[in-house]
């Protein structure tokens, strides 16, 4: 299982459709403060099923839609898609946010309920994403939670 590419459209500071091809090994992202790097990170979190807008620095889902400025008007929706490859087969997971705060999920372009969608994500990350995607601010939390996480992991694997 690997990620092939990431697409952002109308998501946070990415109003235009942006496609990011992901290396099979190491992909690096650099840029000045405030240019949008963590927004990309949050796009991936969102695509993989983040349940709370607050974890993506928004008060509500619609805060994650490009808010517009003098040069470009606000976007109507925010979309993030990830193309994954598993056993030589590609499939795309996509999520869309509407201005009324509704979030819709799609697999290979087909609308799918939140429940079915969570099951699919769980197949990719059986232990949850908390330990595969993290940022500098998570370091303390990782250290503090480690004894509990470790106990759960060892017991569930045993």
């Amino acid at each position, binding site marked *: *299982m*690997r*990620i092939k590419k990431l697409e952002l459209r109308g998501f*946070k*500071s*990415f*109003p*235009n459709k*942006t496609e*990011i*091809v*992901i*290396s*099979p*090994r*190491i*992909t*690096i*992202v*650099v*840029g*000045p403060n*405030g*240019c*949008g*790097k*963590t*927004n*990309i*990170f949050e796009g*991936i979190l969102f695509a993989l099923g983040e349940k709370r807008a607050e974890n993506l620095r928004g008060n509500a889902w619609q805060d994650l839609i490009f808010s517009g*400025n003098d*040069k*470009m008007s606000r976007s109507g929706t925010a979309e993030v898609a990830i193309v994954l490859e598993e056993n030589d087969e590609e499939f795309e997971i996509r999520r869309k946010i509407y201005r009324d705060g509704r979030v819709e999920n799609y697999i290979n372009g087909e609308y799918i309920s939140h429940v079915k969608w969570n099951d699919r994500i769980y197949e*990719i990350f*059986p*232990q949850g*994403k908390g*330990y*595969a*995607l*993290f*940022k*500098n601010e*998570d*370091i*303390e939390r*990782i*250290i503090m939670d*480690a*004894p*509990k*996480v*470790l*106990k759960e*992991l*060892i*017991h569930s*694997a*045993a």
Partner: protein
Amino acid sequence: AKKRFFNLYNNFKENIKEVADNLLKGDIQIELENPDDPLNSEFVIKASPFGKRVRAIALLSGGERALLALSIIFALHQVSPVPFCVLDEVDAALDDANTLRFVEFIKKLSYSTQLFIITHNKRTMESGDILYGVSMEDGISRVFSLRLEEIS
């Protein structure tokens, strides 16, 4: 069941010892809070860099904590692998020597795990095979492919 538990438990202790040797350059000890009741006991984590006797996690420095967190992540990964790992500026607190260790480590890891890494650090940057620069103009972000020669 007790046998399976101790199997995995000891396995993990070895995993994290190896990671700790290479990344933290120190000891990470996993213990059972309650050794007489192992299956219900909570876990305790102690860490100390080589040459230092202090074991309390509270006393570790900023950079040492970053390495400890990374060691935990990577050791967990060996027990329960995930297909890809996305890191956002987790190397911010590392000095030059530790950055090199971190880079060595992720290079090895990348053979079995896809890595997507956001960084300000030039050494970390150099480890990538696909490089993107992000810029913002008038509040709009754009992504560009970069070649390594242009940066170093």
